[in-house]
């Protein structure tokens, strides 16, 4: 959906995705080593723009670009979607970070803050391809609860893949946030200290 939410952290911000990001999305999602766990997308920018048209009409879907607060360099993508007002839950995903980016921790802190503080959700969850051990480990390291494995959730280019579900409730986030925010702050201070013009 078209939204206006900008969530700003120490070194990165989440801002609404826009048509001008189509090329960036295609490039990032097609990057070697990243695409094996993602649903394939067309390499066509026009096709991505058509996908955006549908996305902009879809309620309860918040797609963000992760970019630097200084210089506005784009370094990743992240989303919150499938919001269920009945149980106050939503899925987070479409999370891709450029290989040389240090935005992983801060982008997740910002998205969780958005989910719990702005959207007032009770719970967020994610599904990660089971074979994607690095990303599943990241969720574990953050302290998100590993709930279980959903068999055959993904079909990526004919490969049927299981998915690991992680969850984080509002009270979980209250307990996890201080440590993650402290790590995020330490990283952002280092990035900003080295930033040109600082």
């Amino acid at each position, binding site marked *: 959906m078209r939204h206006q939410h900008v969530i700003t952290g120490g070194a990165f911000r989440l801002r609404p995705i826009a048509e001008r990001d189509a090329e960036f999305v295609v490039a990032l999602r097609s990057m070697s080593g990243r695409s094996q766990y993602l649903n394939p997308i067309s390499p066509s920018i026009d096709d991505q723009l058509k996908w955006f048209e549908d996305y902009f009409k879809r309620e309860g879907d918040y797609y963000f670009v992760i970019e630097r607060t200084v210089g506005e360099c784009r370094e990743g993508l992240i989303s919150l979607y499938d919001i269920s007002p009945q149980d106050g839950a939503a899925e987070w995903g479409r999370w891709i970070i450029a290989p*040389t980016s240090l935005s992983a*921790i801060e982008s997740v802190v910002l998205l969780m803050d958005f989910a719990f503080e702005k959207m007032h959700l009770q719970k967020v969850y994610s599904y990660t391809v089971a074979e994607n051990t690095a*990303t599943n480990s*990241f969720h574990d390291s953050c302290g998100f609860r590993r709930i279980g494995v959903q068999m055959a959730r993904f079909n990526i280019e004919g490969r049927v893949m299981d998915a690991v579900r992680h969850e984080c409730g509002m009270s979980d986030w209250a307990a996890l946030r201080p440590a993650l925010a402290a*790590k995020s702050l330490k990283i952002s201070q*280092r990035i900003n200290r*080295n930033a040109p013009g600082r």
Partner: protein
Amino acid sequence: MKDPKNLEIEVAKLVSEILDEPISPEASRLTVAGWDSLKHMEIIFAFEEAYGVRLDEAEMAALSSVKGLAKRAMKQA
């Protein structure tokens, strides 16, 4: 100057303590599932403190193996 092999063993021990699993000098983010983005930053900050190194942002992202870290520590020595 430290022997490079000993330094690799020393760095492997540092990484091992953070990941809480045995780590060989050949280990890298590509070979160790638990060496995720969050743990990587913990390793980087612990490495800086242990060896009195100040890494720039590109190095923080790129130094993702025991051998690479040991080589960087050697450069600093």
